[in-house]
């Protein structure tokens, strides 16, 4: 925090000193200092305007301090925090001296609320500068006047879009929306570094506008486009507004299944403000903020946020050698996906396949992936081309002598994996890491064929690679620390959230999914149709229905994995009949990729229908259902308890090193309901005792598949024990 009177004693520059970490967060301390400075500005006659600017590169204010929120014990305490914030920002809004926000870097949550309380906003137009209200992603709402100011600033539809999706808005888009008033282009090198000079320039420009506002040579009133004026006019009509509320509400209901309280609260708070005036609006905003902050959904989402931060760090430290050249074997969906997320981060990437046709398809996939960014204008066509110049598609091992890492994504067959491992080891340099992108084959088994098992590691990506955030890294007993460091570093560079687990059949993610999918099959066999199974599971919070999930994974893959895991874990992975899968494979019902699975998939058809060819199969494997354990809730719990029990077992066996990574893996890799925060968070909030009781109930009917593991029993027996403190 610093005040910087300029030479005319006209402006105060308010900046944050880099005291705590890389980003600015609105903490109690910062708020207090801020209030002091503002009071001084108002008291000092010589000061006629003020500029708010951060001295930290890449961060204006990244949001409220989460620790501050989490330290609160009651809803009232949080409400009080919200009201303090509201008051502070109201004073800025009503300040007789114009206040200009000079924004560079993330301006999110509370940071955006500070910015929109100012009279004018100047932002740098670079990729790091993003504005947004991500509170909803943490189960909260903008609690410092944001719900009230935003609709007035950008219009109701845009405000709802921002607050309900939490999406980041880049500076140029923000200018078009009216969220910022002026843009400053980042500067190149001059007499200082580009970063330093750009911030200085932003400050100069902001000061000029602040002065202009004070002198009345600049008007803060924005010229609005015809469309915007029309929208504003329409939104001023109560019945149009009611219609908007209704539409938005039904959309939110449909998408959240009522599992997330925050979006509905946001709608309610905005509505109150617009219909009943500011005072009512601010009051309900603060109250709702307090209520939301203590919900278990919010705690779950905040837990995920902390987990994500945790999984964006490399606990193995920096690898000895940075991976500059990466080779990917196999240009299938996964291989090409891995190549795409690597090459666009500046890693020189070789994409190798054995057939020209497969290679062409893979290269086209990478091109298409990048080109879609061009269409969305997040990349220029020139940048796309220059990125692609670092991708080498080939059929041979040329250039592998320069590879720092090889990731294989070839067919899931141990013999094929061994073959490529040997071929690769003959051509790569000594330091090169060999990573296998397998979803189930134990890495130690693959490494058995290696001359240098310390350089072998598993990197389990999720499909589609460019969309799914998770990367599961698997180390064996022999994997060296540096190899692990290298793999994590590559994953982080690719933008992934990385969990590191120990080797074992199915590692962590595939292993947890196994029992659940087996249970899905049993449920289907009990006569519940796929649509109903999907409805029950999405109602619980799974983003993808359980039957659809099998279609997405691919029935052949699922069969493969189920067989392997069945062999390894025996009875516990039983339940549904694997022969059902086998018959599906025989009939060609391989899931989405074949156009038929449980459902029929047609290009351009949105509402897919159930595959009638399945009736016969399901009939054939029909088993009687026990009505005691077949209510909707029971079915949900049968699926989830098996998942959670297996996850706990992974922790118990040391596959997982901590519950946090277990939650992240389940949510980001497998779509475990985010509102529950992951299997371990769920065990805590649902109660280990209650969970064990459920397991025992199903155990009585189905047997050992539901036998709770020791770790869960321990937790059940001592209520103070929690996975997350």
């Amino acid at each position: 925090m610093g005040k910087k009177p300029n030479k005319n004693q006209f402006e105060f520059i308010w900046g944050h000193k880099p005291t705590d970490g890389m980003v600015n967060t609105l903490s109690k301390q910062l708020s207090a200092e801020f209030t002091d400075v503002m009071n001084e500005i108002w008291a000092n006659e010589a000061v006629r305007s003020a500029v708010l600017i951060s001295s930290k590169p890449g961060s204006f204010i990244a949001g409220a301090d989460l620790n501050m929120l989490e330290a609160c014990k009651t809803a009232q305490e949080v409400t009080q925090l919200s009201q303090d914030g509201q008051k502070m920002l109201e004073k800025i809004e009503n300040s007789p001296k114009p206040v200009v926000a000079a924004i560079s870097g993330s301006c999110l949550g509370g940071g955006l609320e500070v910015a929109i309380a100012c009279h004018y906003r100047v932002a740098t137009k670079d990729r790091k500068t993003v504005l947004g209200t991500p509170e909803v992603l943490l189960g909260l709402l903008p609690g410092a006047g944001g719900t009230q100011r935003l609709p007035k600033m950008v219009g109701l539809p845009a405000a709802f879009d921002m607050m309900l999706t939490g999406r980041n808005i880049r500076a140029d888009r923000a200018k078009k929306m009216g969220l910022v008033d002026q843009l400053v282009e980042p500067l190149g090198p001059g007499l200082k570094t580009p970063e330093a000079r750009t911030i200085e320039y932003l400050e100069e420009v902001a000061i000029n506008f602040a002065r202009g506002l004070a002198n009345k040579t600049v008007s803060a009133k924005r010229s609005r486009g015809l469309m915007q004026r029309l929208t504003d006019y329409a939104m001023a009509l109560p019945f149009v507004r009611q219609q908007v509320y209704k539409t938005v509400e039904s959309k939110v209901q449909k998408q959240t299944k009522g599992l997330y309280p925050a979006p509905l609260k946001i709608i309610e708070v905005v509505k109150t403000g617009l219909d009943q005036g500011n005072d009512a609006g601010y009051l309900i905003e603060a109250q709702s903020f307090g209520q939301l902050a203590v919900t278990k959904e919010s705690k779950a989402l905040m837990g995920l946020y902390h987990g994500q931060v945790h999984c964006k760090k490399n606990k193995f430290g920096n690898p000895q050698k940075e991976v500059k050249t990466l080779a990917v074997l196999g240009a299938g969906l996964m291989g090409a996906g891995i190549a795409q997320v690597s090459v666009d981060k500046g890693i020189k990437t070789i994409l190798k396949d054995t057939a020209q046709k497969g290679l062409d398809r893979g290269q086209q996939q990478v091109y298409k992936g990048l080109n879609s960014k061009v269409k969305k204008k997040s990349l220029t066509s020139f940048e796309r081309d220059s990125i692609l110049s670092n991708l080498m598609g080939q059929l041979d091992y040329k250039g592998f002598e320069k590879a720092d890492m090889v990731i294989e994504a070839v067919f899931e067959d141990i013999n094929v994996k061994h073959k490529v491992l040997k071929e690769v080891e003959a051509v790569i340099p000594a330091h090169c890491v060999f990573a296998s992108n397998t979803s189930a084959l134990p890495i130690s088994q693959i490494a058995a064929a290696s001359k240098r098992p310390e350089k072998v590691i598993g990197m389990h990506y999720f499909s589609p690679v460019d969309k799914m955030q998770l990367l599961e890294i698997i180390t064996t007993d022999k994997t060296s620390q540096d190899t692990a460091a290298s793999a994590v570093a590559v994953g982080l560079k690719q933008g992934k959230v990385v969990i590191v687990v120990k080797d074992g059949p199915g590692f962590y993610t595939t292993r947890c999914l196994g029992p659940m999918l087996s249970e899905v099959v049993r449920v289907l066999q009990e006569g519940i149709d796929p649509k109903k199974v999907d409805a029950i599971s999405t109602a619980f919070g799974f983003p993808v229905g359980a039957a659809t999930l099998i279609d997405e994974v691919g029935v052949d893959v699922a069969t493969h994995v189920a067989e392997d895991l069945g062999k390894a874990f025996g009875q516990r992975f039983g339940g549904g009949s694997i022969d059902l899968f086998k018959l599906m494979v025989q009939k060609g019902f391989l899931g989405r990729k074949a156009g038929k699975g449980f459902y029929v998939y047609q290009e351009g058809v949105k509402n897919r229908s159930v595959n009638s060819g399945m009736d016969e199969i399901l009939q054939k494997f029909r088993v009687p259902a026990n009505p005691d354990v077949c209510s909707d809730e029971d079915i949900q719990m049968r699926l989830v308890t098996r998942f959670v029990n297996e996850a706990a077992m992974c922790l118990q066996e040391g596959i997982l090193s901590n519950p946090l990574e277990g939650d992240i893996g389940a949510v980001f890799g497998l779509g475990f309901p985010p509102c529950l925060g992951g299997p371990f968070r769920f065990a805590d909030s649902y109660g280990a005792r209650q969970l064990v009781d459920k397991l025992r109930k199903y155990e009585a009917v189905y047997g050992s598949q539901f036998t709770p593991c020791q770790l869960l029993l321990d937790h059940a027996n001592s209520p103070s024990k929690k996975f997350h403190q």
Partner: protein
Amino acid sequence: AQPKTKKTLGKTGVKNVVVVEGVRIPFLQSGTSYADLMPHDLARAALQGLLTRTSVPRDVVDYIVYGTVIQEVKTSNVAREAALGAGFSDKTPAHTVTMACISSNQAMTTGVGMIAAGQCDVVVAGGVELMSDVPIRHSRKMRKTMLTLNRAKTLGQKLSLISKIRPDYFTPELPAVAEFSTSETMGHSADRLAAAFGVSRLEQDEYALRSHSLAKKAQDEGLLQDVVPFKVPGKDTVTKDNGIRPSSLEQMGKLKPAFVKPYGTVTAANSSFLTDGASAMLIMSEEKALAMGYKPKAYLRDFVYVSQDPKDQLLLGPTYATPKVLEKAGLTLGDIDVFEFHEAFAGQILANLKAMDSDWFAQNYMGRKSKVGAPPLDKFNTWGGSLSLGHPFGATGCRLVITAAHRLKKEGGQYGLVAACAAGGQ
């Protein structure tokens, strides 16, 4: 004057290349007297001016090279069309080069190379630009339809193609004013460059005013001897540049920023304007020139091309090239008597001067131990520059070189240094 580091830059075993003469037709603001002509007309006039001025026999010329930026599609090898039209021998080959604002520099150095390599003895190099008329194309969709239409055989096929034409097909495609790689216009980049080096609006306006005042003075004193009159068909003879307009700081200060709105610093008054014009230069090996009885105006000794980041350092070519060419020639900045730098924007010139005077920039971006230093202004563009005389992209390089030669002669100097920036970051 201080003693020179080197007495001569002549190298043993390498032919001396000399400038015999250089001329240009008056540079005019686009849309004025040359508006109805074609580029090769302007080039032709410059070539004829050169012939008249030097009386060189046309068939002595071994080769002709011309530089141009925005190509008229009908005369893509404008060098050849202009040479034929100007009455040069049809046995003299000609080609056209392009390298943005340094296209005629490229033409001259191509000639230097040919002579040094013993390929030729006499080369005419020049440049031309006609901004009054630029090729505007049909949209890609329309072009595709038209080309397919050519191949359609039956009336049915033709009609079905024509029926697919939509109103948006008629949206024309203007030639890009922006850098292809970055989509940024040059003026915008210049504004950012000025900001990066902390060049103020006032400094820019002052520099632009200096350029116009010096150009006016040079014009009034008859120093711009490279200008040859041009009788434009249907119009009066054009005898002088028409873009020189010394104004006042007050008036210039009223202008709104042209690129970074509303707070930028680059305006129409401190930028070079769209210009029509052409230049031509006769270069020879020294022995040939002497044998033909010419008195050479200057030696062309050394040159260097550089390139850098087209986004943030688009216009910093002179900063990078100056120390390099000095080192190559074995001279220091203090040895140079005459500087002729291309003035694309006042902000660009001032940014370059600051960059050349910065140790920090030299060390962090140029990989040099220390700065080369800024040229003293009393030796710098003292007869005006592109800001005031105009800047027909392809033709400016020859103007810079011949002006340097004339200034050396007039001021009794020995060494001149010419530098220019160009689109593409070169």
